[in-house]
Structures are given as structure tokens and as C-alpha cells.
């Protein structure tokens, strides 16, 4: 506790309140749904979400497994982290593969090589095949304008679509998870966390992250004002030259659309100091997929994206 907080014995810090609410959301889903699953990419938000899920049910294991929608263009450090965590906890991991969907002709590769928007089809296929009725996602309302209007419990029709005009009002903290067969509910336990809250929570809980979240030397090339990592996904193109720079990642997604930022932050505390001083949002700084149009996220959500 610090000078900002009054001496009142019943005060909770903002992190304690956010943590308690996220735990409450996990337990509500466990109590009301048959087949939940947690989307896990090995990115910081899904790592924090898993940490909260473990806390919500300890000393028992969470009553659900993990689902990774694998674009095939992953950072090796993140894949290694994912496999280590899953093995260490003994959790069940389902993988829905974008590459398989492309190979089978269900999805077509885009000319720009970006696979993030292609995740929707394998995600919906996996939800249908496993009959998942609740899908935990790490989405936060502070990330983007369309997400600011998202519910904690977000009903999706049998096409996985999100209709902003059909959303259920969400009052108090009474979550309505009822849905028809074939429909499912996306649940966002981190709805009210900001990027800074997530990092502060990582610090408070001493949560281990993949190394690429911290400053490291890497070969990168510039595209659309971001540092992208070369790889089999289609970069660099002709005229894009590779340089070695000290960078870190603020978000971790598909390699083709996740940019690194110049950084010397090697510890969680240094990352927090950098975020506090940064004048760019995390998606604005490092996600090409949100720059496609003013309504990019809204359109992808309507089609069934996270």
C-alpha cells in the first residue's frame, strides 16, 4: 500500500479489484457452461488470462483446456514457451491450424502474406468440432474502438458473428450466458484491464513471459513504419533491407503483421517505464492488421474474429 491509498482497512488496489473480477468471470463460466475453452497464443494477454484461470480454481485445475489458433508464422520463442507451459501444467491443448485450412483449400492465402484475418475459419471450425460453448479470449476494451463496445459475455451466432446491434445489455455484474444450440459465447475476463494494468499484474505476480517481450538484438526490416522480422511468411521483399537492431515486441501475433519497437527495456519494470512514457497505443505501434481500415476490427469481429 502507498500514500495514495487511504488508511481504510478495507481498501483494495485497482489490480486487486481487476483480479477479483476476472476470477469471478472464470468461475461464472465454469458454473454455467458445459464445454469452455481458453484461447492461448503464448502472448502476454493469454498468459495473464491463464494465470488468472489457475488462481480461480486452485488447488484444483481449471475445468477446461486450451485452444491455440496457429497461423503457422509463429515466433519460435513463443511456441517453445507455449509447449513448456502446457507440459508443465498438464493441461490439454487443442491446436487449430491455419496452414491445414490453407492446404485443404478452406482458406486462401492473402497476397500480403498476413494470416491474422485467416484465423477466423479454423477458430470457428474448432469451436464447432469440439462443441465449445464458451471461449475465453484475452481481448481488452482499451485496445481498439470496436472493442470498447464489447461485452464481457459476448454472444456469437452459429456463424461466429458479432452483431453490435444485437448485443445483450450487461448490467451490474450479472452475466447472461444463455445461448441456443450452435451458438457460443466469447468471454473476455481481461475486459477492464489496460495494457499498463496487464504489465503491472505481470510484475506483481512475477509471471514469466516469452523472451521477445524484452529488448533483444534481432534482424528486422522496415515496412509501413514498423520493424518486421524476416521469415518464411514473405518478408523482406525486394528493396526492403535487413538491419540488426535492439527491439522488443509490445504485442505478439502473426509474424507478418506484428511489428517490433526500438527498446532497451530488459525487465518488466523497464517495460512499464517505457509504456508509461510511450505516446503510441500498443496496436497503433505494432499491429498492421488494425491499420487496414478505420473499421478493420469491427469488420473482422462481425465475421467471427476474436
Amino acid at each position, binding site marked *: 500500500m502507498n500514500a495514495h491509498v487511504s488508511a*481504510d482497512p478495507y481498501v483494495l488496489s485497482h489490480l486487486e479489484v481487476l483480479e477479483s473480477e476476472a476470477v469471478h468471470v472464470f468461475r461464472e463460466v465454469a*458454473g454455467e457452461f458445459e464445454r469452455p475453452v481458453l484461447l492461448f497464443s503464448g502472448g502476454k494477454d493469454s498468459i495473464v488470462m491463464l494465470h488468472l484461470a489457475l488462481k480461480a480454481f486452485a488447488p484444483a485445475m481449471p475445468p477446461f483446456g486450451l485452444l491455440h489458433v496457429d497461423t503457422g508464422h509463429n515466433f519460435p520463442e513463443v511456441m517453445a514457451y507455449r509447449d513448456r507451459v502446457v507440459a508443465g501444467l498438464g493441461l490439454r491443448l487443442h491446436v487449430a491450424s491455419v496452414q491445414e485450412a490453407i492446404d485443404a483449400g478452406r482458406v486462401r492465402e492473402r497476397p500480403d502474406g498476413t494470416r491474422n484475418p485467416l484465423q477466423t475459419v479454423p477458430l470457428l471450425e474448432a469451436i464447432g468440432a469440439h462443441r465449445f460453448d464458451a471461449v475465453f479470449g484475452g481481448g481488452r476494451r482499451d485496445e481498439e474502438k470496436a472493442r470498447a463496445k464489447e461485452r464481457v459475455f459476448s454472444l456469437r451466432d452459429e456463424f461466429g458473428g458479432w452483431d453490435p446491434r444485437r448485443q445483450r445489455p450487461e448490467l451490474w455484474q450479472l452475466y447472461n450466458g444463455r445461448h441456443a444450440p450452435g451458438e457460443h459465447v466469447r468471454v473476455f475476463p481481461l475486459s477492464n484491464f489496460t495494457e499498463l494494468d496487464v504489465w503491472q499484474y505481470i510484475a506483481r505476480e512475477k509471471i514469466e513471459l516469452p523472451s521477445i517481450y524484452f529488448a533483444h538484438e534481432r534482424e528486422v526490416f522496415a515496412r509501413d513504419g514498423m520493424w518486421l522480422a524476416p521469415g518464411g511468411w514473405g518478408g523482406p521483399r525486394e528493396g526492403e533491407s535487413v538491419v540488426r537492431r535492439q527491439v522488443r515486441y509490445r504485442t505478439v501475433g502473426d509474424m507478418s503483421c506484428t511489428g517490433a519497437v526500438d527498446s532497451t527495456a530488459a525487465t518488466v519494470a523497464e517495460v512499464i517505464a517505457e509504456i508509461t512514457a510511450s505516446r503510441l497505443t500498443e496496436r497503433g505501434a505494432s499491429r498492421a492488421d488494425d491499420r487496414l481500415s478505420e473499421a478493420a476490427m469491427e469488420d473482422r469481429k462481425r465475421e467471427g474474429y476474436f
Partner: protein
Amino acid sequence: MTVTTSVTDTATSLLRFATAGSVDDGKSTLVGRLLHDSKSVLTDQLEAVAHASRDRGTGAPDLALLTDGLRAEREQGITIDVAYRYFATPRRRFILADTPGHVQYTRNMVTGASTARTAVVLVDARNGVVEQTRRHLAVAALLRVPYVLLAVNKMDLVGYTEAVFAAMAAEFTAYARELGVCQVTAVPVSALAGDNVVTPSAHMDWYGGPTVLEYLETVPVVTDPAAEPARFPVQYTIRPQTTTHPDYRGYAGRIASGVLRVGEPVTVLPSGRTSTIAAIDALGHSADIAWAPQSIILHLADDLDVSRGDLITPTTDTPHLTQDVEATVCHLADRPLLPGARVLLKHTTRTVRAFVKDISSRLTLEDLSQHPKPGRLNANDIGRVTLRTAEPLALDPYATSRHTGSFLLIDPTDGTTLAGGVAE
């Protein structure tokens, strides 16, 4: 408490507040100004706004564009839905439920106000307290938002005149008192020019009160849990049944109100069985005491049959069990609510079957008059209803507890949320 590091010294308090007002009052501009002047808007967001403003042919960046999220809203220049916004100052973290003000969106204001500690109600200094203002205040009163701030906006258009502001503040405060809202503060602002939103105004020396942001930074964020009855709705039973925890049996939930202590005698409702609190697990460490809104696991001394939907309370202070619910509801769905309707009622972690016995009156928010026997409630109507439930509910009056006095009505056929209700 967990071990603190230097980073967690930034731990701070959290305030949830709601705004009410319409596009015409300059609500989006006020919110945009609050975010902009508190340095919560980052370069790329500002660039996007400047770019969009240029596309629309407006001159200066339109701060309202910071908050209009959906394509339909941008095209029509309106706000359709509740949007949640986040900002922070060194003193506090804020979650803003930004709600549209027009009459057809009463349900959105109800949604935003349901979790708010503070409501910011906007009026246009040229128009004063209008019907819509009275409706916003009535919603805040119905949902028992503890603190209300009146922001008299567009003071620049009335020459920053003290008398204009004073008259509106007096009228608003008198109406608030009628509704039972005691904690009212009024601030004269110009969201467009930035007066008294974050920065004190250079044009209104006659005003000595806080800016909107100063008010939000200092309004009390918590009620004293010790002053409320303890209520613990059971969410989930934790039974690992592992070799390390063969006999572990704990009840997981979030304390809805009040304080729980190890050793305290408790009653489980609706069964009425009694036990004592044997232990409390507070997310990874054991505790002798826990309070709202902590999520915990509770262990009882006796092996009772307890499951999701039960309510654990101190034996000395149990709520009344009832199957006849008298309540005020705000109807949220497009299809009307009719007497005789079969519904599901969700109260805390318990969902029971119910039917609408009677709709005794519909409230006209503008003048607080009750229209008897309306026959139905349409979307955005607020009315008094009598419900009969298939099983007993441990319901508190909403005046005592926002958590154990509130409920949802749900359509059993398709899961639609029909109404939000507050028990009498």
C-alpha cells in the same frame, strides 16, 4: 497481501463512472477533452482523429471522434451503445461507461449506471435542465449511483455568466433532493474550449470549485464494507480430489457485500442450515478476514450440502426469503413485457423460473408520475412489477445492496436479456 515490488507502488484506486448526455450537449467532446487533456490519448489515436476530421471536411480535429467506435455511429454521428473507456492519472484509474443520452437509449444509461459510483450528467448552458436531464437524474437515482456531477457545458456560448450557471445548479440540486440523491456537485465547463474539464478556467474567476477531473479524482471510491450486511453467493464448488488434496472442499465466490471472518457462524440459504467459517483462501494465501469485492474460497466447519446458487450469510443477519418479488424494472428488449409472461430470473448466482404476475404502473421519468396499469412495458420503459418465482430467493432491498438487490429477467426461449430489476 502478495509480496510487493517497486512496480506495485503504482497501485492506486479505481473509480467507475458513467456519463449521460446527448450528442447535442457535447458529451462526446467532453469525454474526448477529458481523455485528451489528461494525456490519455496517444499520438496514433490523435493522428487517426485528425485524418478522419480532414476526410469529413471539418477544420480542427473533432475530439468527439475519439469516442465514436462503430461505423454506423460515425456515419450517423450518434452513439448507439455503451462504450467503455479507460484512463488514468497519477492519483487514480478510471473506467468510464460512456452512454448515449437519447430517450430510446434509456436502457444503455441504466446499463452504465448499474456499476457506476458516480454519474456525470451534462446539460447545455443555453437550454438548462430539460426533460432529458430529469430522465438522466431519475435513472441515476433509481440505480442508486451515490454521487452525481452536473456539468453545465457550453458556458462559452452564454458569456461565462455566473447567474446562468447558478440558476441551473439550483434547479438541478432541488430536483436531485426530491429524488433522494444528496451528493450533487455542479461544475461550469466548456468542453470545446477546455474550461474546467481538466484545467481550471481562466474565464470563470467566480467559480471556486473543482474541475471535472479533480472531482473524479477525489470522490470516494468505496463504501465501508463493515457497514453492509455480509453476502456470499456461491459460484462454484472446488473439489480437486487429488492425492495432495483428497478431502479439500471449498466454496468459490466473490463477496457481494460486507465482511466475512473465520470463526463466524453462518447460515446457508435457501436451506437454512448453519455452520461456521473454518477458513478463507484469498487467491493463493489464507486469510482471517475478507471483504467485498474480493474473490475467495470459503471453507465451512461442517459438511453441508452447498452448491452454486446458494447464499452464505452471517447467522445474525440473514436476508428474507421470498417467492413474491416487488420490484422496479427497466425493460431492455424490443419485444414488450406483458403480464403473465414466463421468464427466468437471475439473482446473484441463482437462476429460477418466474412469471410476471402484475405490471402495476409505468414511471414517467420526466415528472416522476406513475401511470397505473399500463398493460405492458416497452423497450426503455421503467415500471413496477410483481413477480412470482418457482423457488425462494434470498433477496435484499436494492437500497441495502446493489449486488443482492438486483436481478435480470431472461427469456427462457432464446436467452434474451429482457429487463434489469431492483427489488424493493
